[in-house]
């Protein structure tokens, strides 16, 4: 299988000026294309930091991080933005949607930063995702009026609109009821079966159980389960 993510001896340290906190210690693992991985761990273990690091929202303090065999430790801000825009799709616990925007406008945010695309094809794609995620009737509604489950589906549609290779989901079901949790997990499983690489950070055992492989983070260190 093709390796798309590779971390070698990665460390992440935060400093508040006086003291340093080592959040991730000597992390090494590989992700193959089409993997469906759960990263589990207790609160404060460093799993969200690891996901942020994978998604280029943070940079490692040391170690090597490669995407598709290309080191991304020292990419420029612009290169990093391009990767965030086209290589990764993000789904987070609090949805990270802009409340005053409509569903359509939220989904268009990453499109605005992508290379120019034909508007008609983008619209057709958005309609397709909305149909598939069962929120087509909410297209022009402001997201603040949607339920948690609906918001997360909007976030998934937004994550998919630029056809990324990897979906990074940080506690995607953390704010949802059991039925919505089930629906969102079904969508993620479906995406994985279509060949997308999905990495889910969760502290919920039943969510992690639905993933094909599992990594456990404890005290900043990673263990395969």
């Amino acid at each position, binding site marked *: 299988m093709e390796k798309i993510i590779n971390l070698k001896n990665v460390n992440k340290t935060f400093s508040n000026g006086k003291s340093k906190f080592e959040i991730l210690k000597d992390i090494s693992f590989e992700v193959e294309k089409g993997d469906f991985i759960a990263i589990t761990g207790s609160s404060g273990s460093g799993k969200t930091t690891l996901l942020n690091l994978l998604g280029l*929202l943070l940079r490692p303090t040391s170690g090597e991080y490669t995407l598709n065999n290309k080191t991304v430790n020292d990419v420029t*801000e612009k290169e990093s*933005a391009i990767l*965030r*825009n086209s290589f990764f799709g993000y789904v987070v616990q609090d949805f990270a949607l*802009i409340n005053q925007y409509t569903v359509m406008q939220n989904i268009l*945010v990453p499109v605005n930063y*992508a290379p120019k695309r034909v508007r008609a094809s983008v619209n057709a794609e958005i309609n397709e995702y909305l149909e598939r995620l069962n929120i087509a009737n909410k297209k022009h509604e402001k997201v603040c009026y949607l339920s948690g489950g609906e918001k997360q589906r909007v976030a998934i549609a937004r994550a998919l609109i630029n056809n990324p290779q990897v979906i990074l989901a940080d506690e995607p079901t953390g704010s949802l009821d059991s039925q919505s949790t089930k629906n969102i997990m079904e969508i993620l499983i479906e995406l994985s079966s279509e060949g997308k690489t999905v990495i889910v950070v969760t502290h919920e055992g039943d969510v992690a159980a639905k993933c094909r492989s599992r990594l456990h983070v404890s005290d900043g260190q990673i263990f395969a389960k």
Partner: protein
Amino acid sequence: MNEECDNVAIQQYCADRKLFDMLDIKCSSGNVYDNENINSEVPMVVGYKLRNIYKLGENYEMFNYSSDEVMTVKIVGLLEPGSTIPSLYNIGSSLNLDYAVFMPISNNLINNFANLDMAINSTVIFTDDETNLLNISKKSAELNLFSMQYNSIQSNIDGYLEYLNEKLQSRIMTIGIISVFSIGSMILNLFTLISRKRKEFSIHLMMGAIRKDIMMQLVCHIGILFVPAIIICLIIEGFNSTFLYTVIFSALLMIILLILPIMRIKRMDIATMLQKGEM
């Protein structure tokens, strides 16, 4: 003669024809008098707003306080509306002539000591050679007639410039204080905007924006305030140097306003913004 019109006191001046030529004071109808044509009728030029009281070509009888006699004046000219002369006693300001009357300088009109004294005290002499005036002053002192104080225009101008300088400094200080508070409050406003939109900005960054895109949003936010001001300036001033200076000043002000907020955005990291931002 009426001493006031429209509740405005009528100013009476005795002036040489040369004053009109030198200061380019023109008549809208009739003509300025010549010095020679004073006979039984005294020629008089009147200000524009006196046109309904004193009709051009008409004769009027006026009491001459200096000779205790009634004299006849003939209206020979009506000044253009809004005519002014620079005030030589208050450099920088001007005297409006709409309610003024002009008569020639003549011994017939100024013929007692009190009037002569008043006339001398308010006489303005234009000369190319200051020594002439100094000689008059000297001669007057020798003859024990009048003690004359020579006051050159240059010293008046210097005094006026000093006054202007003080006024300018005071205005600069006022503008400075207002600017400091305005710029301060606008920067505060931008910081509030950044704090309020922190989550939104972080979402844009996560989705592929770069910091420059966020900065452009701030520039647009500030630009909304500046563009109407520039348009108003263009309408009022037209496309001239004042307009260009306004544009340059606005651009500089925008840069000053944006320095601190942009530094703040540069320091932010997306992950922290995502976690801390409130929507």
